[in-house]
C-alpha cells in the first residue's frame, strides 16, 4: 500500500520540503495562541487568566505535535505529552494556591502529613465537605 510507513517523518528539513498543510495548522494554532495570550493580559478576573493559561497550554500541545510533523522529528510528540501532563498539574496548582493560599492544604485531613490515612480521610469525608478556610486578605 505504501512504500515506507513513516517516510514523511524522516525527510530532512529544508524550506521547500515544508508541507503546506502543516504550515496552515501551525499558523492557525499560533493565531489562537496569540488570542489566548491577549485574553490572559486583558482578563478582568484571575479566573480569566487561569482559563487563558490553560487554553495556551492545550494550544501549545497542538503546536508541539504539528511542529513535530513540520520538522520531521517525532520526538516533539513526547514533549507534547509531557507538556499535557504538566498543564493539568499547573492549572490545578494555581487554582489551589489561590483558593487556600497554600499548596500543601489537604481539605480531607487538615492535620495529617503528606499522605493522609485513607480510613481517616474517609471518616472526615463522610462528615460532609469541610468548609474552606477563608483568607482574610481577599
Amino acid at each position, binding site marked *: 500500500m505504501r512504500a515506507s510507513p513513516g517516510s514523511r517523518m524522516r525527510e530532512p528539513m529544508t524550506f521547500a520540503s515544508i508541507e503546506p498543510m502543516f504550515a496552515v495548522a501551525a499558523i492557525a494554532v499560533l493565531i489562537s495562541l496569540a488570542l489566548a495570550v491577549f485574553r490572559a493580559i486583558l482578563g478582568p478576573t484571575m479566573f480569566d487568566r487561569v482559563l487563558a493559561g490553560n487554553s495556551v497550554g492545550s494550544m501549545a500541545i497542538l503546536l508541539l505535535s504539528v511542529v513535530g510533523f513540520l520538522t520531521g522529528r517525532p520526538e516533539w510528540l*513526547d514533549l507534547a505529552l509531557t507538556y499535557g501532563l504538566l498543564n493539568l498539574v499547573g492549572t490545578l496548582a494555581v487554582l489551589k494556591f489561590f483558593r487556600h493560599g497554600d499548596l500543601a492544604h489537604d481539605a480531607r485531613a487538615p492535620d495529617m502529613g503528606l499522605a493522609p490515612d485513607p480510613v481517616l480521610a474517609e471518616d472526615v469525608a*463522610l462528615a460532609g465537605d469541610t468548609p474552606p478556610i477563608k483568607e482574610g486578605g481577599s
Partner: protein
Amino acid sequence: MRALSLAIFLFAFWLALSGHYTPFLLATGVIMAIACALLAARMHILDAEGHPVHLLSKGVLSYFLWLGWEIVKSAWSVTKIILNPRLPISPTMTRIKTSQKTSVGVTVFANSITLTPGTITVGVESAGSTSGSSSGGHDILTVHALQREGAQDLEGGAMDARVARFEDA
C-alpha cells in the same frame, strides 16, 4: 487480580512510549510496571474507582462513539453562536439529577457533560451527605449551560440514561 491488570496496562503503556526494545529496557519496564502496581495497591488507590477496568469489557466503544457524536453536534451549535455577530447566548444554571449507582458512573456523567461544549458541570451535591452513605440516594449536579436549550436537553435526561446504561451494561 486488579494489580496484575494494572501492571499489564502500565507495561503496554511503557512499550508504546519507549519504541526501543532491547532486553535491558524491556526488563526495566516490567520491573517498573510491577513496582507501580504494588505502590498503588499499598496506597489503597487500586480499587474499582482507581482502575475501573471492569468498564472496559462493556460497551465502552459504543459509548465513546455516541459521546463523540454528541460533542460534534454541540460543538457545532456553540461555533454558530460564537460566529454569530449578535452572540445569542442565554446562560443558564440548572441542577441535574443523576441515576448512576457508583461514583465512577457519576464522574463519567459529569465529565461527559463538561467535555460536551456548551455545558459545564460546576458542582456535585452528594445526596448521601446527610444520611452518611452515598450509595442510597442520587447525587445532583450543578450545571452551567451556554444556552437554555442545552440545559433543557440535560434536564430531559437522555445523557443521564445513556451513561447509566453504559455503567450497567
